[in-house]
């Protein structure tokens, strides 16, 4: 059981580490703070991207070749999510034109944080790494995408995957 907590703790430390290293200079204005926040999110997202690339290489080592895009998305929702977050995605929806919405009703990185709208403004920094994770995994499987996260009430959240057609 303890090993599950390790990832959560490491992730929390990672987020605060990235933000702390950005806080070195004095915050001058609100605009500057916002810009700094964006930079931190990008940094976390890039970390997730690299981890996702590595993870997907390991996870798909023993699986059969994927049939199509949907097959890959299902793999992300089931096997990938189960290995990383100990549960499957609750709902996967698609418009069959390159947009997928992955809904998790009890996202593991948010469960310890809040059960409602409290701290809602902080949710985005705890989702950036996961967005990168999905994007990195998909990119290594040959799908270029943009992943955004959306939270209306914690700990539920939605990830929107927009596939970039070449």
């Amino acid at each position: 059981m303890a090993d599950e907590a390790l990832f959560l703790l490491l992730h929390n430390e990672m987020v605060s580490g990235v933000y702390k290293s950005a806080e070195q200079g004095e915050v001058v204005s609100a605009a500057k703070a916002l810009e700094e926040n964006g930079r931190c999110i990008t940094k976390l997202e890039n970390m997730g991207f690299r981890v996702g690339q590595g993870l997907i290489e390991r996870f798909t080592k023993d699986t059969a070749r994927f049939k199509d895009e949907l097959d890959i998305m299902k793999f992300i929702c089931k096997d990938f999510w189960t290995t990383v977050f100990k549960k499957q995605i609750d709902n996967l929806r698609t418009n069959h034109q390159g947009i997928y919405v992955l809904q998790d009703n009890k996202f593991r990185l948010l469960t310890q944080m809040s059960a409602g709208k409290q701290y809602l403004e902080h949710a985005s920094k705890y989702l950036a790494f996961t967005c990168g994770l999905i994007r990195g995994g998909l990119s290594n499987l040959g799908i270029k995408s943009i992943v955004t996260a959306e939270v209306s009430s914690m700990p539920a959240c939605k990830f929107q995957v927009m596939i970039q057609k070449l």
Partner: protein
Amino acid sequence: MAVCVAVIAKENYPLYIRSIPTENELKFHYMVHTSLDVVDEKISAMGKALVDQRELYLGLLYPTEDYKVYGYVTNSKVKFVMVVDSSNTALRDNEIRSMFRKLHNSYTDVMCNPFYNPGDRIQSRAFDSMVTSMMIQVLSRAPCCRAGEALWA
């Protein structure tokens, strides 16, 4: 048995290529290069196949007079190509498959190394020595087979 091992990236440029008779390197590079079309053909034909037939190992790509070329493609579309001396008839399909698995495991380790940038040339020493062991294993076994043949003759 393996005289040449190559790892080709998604975008079809070489990540790693090594051959054992170094004097004729270009010939092997050419062989690997020409095999990529066969790989593409096999993958596109495989898309429609049943689940249990969608294996990562592609089997024999094409034989030439002196060599056999085998292929393997990971889910991330990275291609492994192995050129084998065709005089070595003792080599079974299953052995080739397990060699590719070993190669894949090693590649995964490289990929998960934080000091490796995906898409760069593979310079890992662990990977290098694994490939060497695959080439030597064959070399050390080949004379052994020949000794056996002499015995029978």
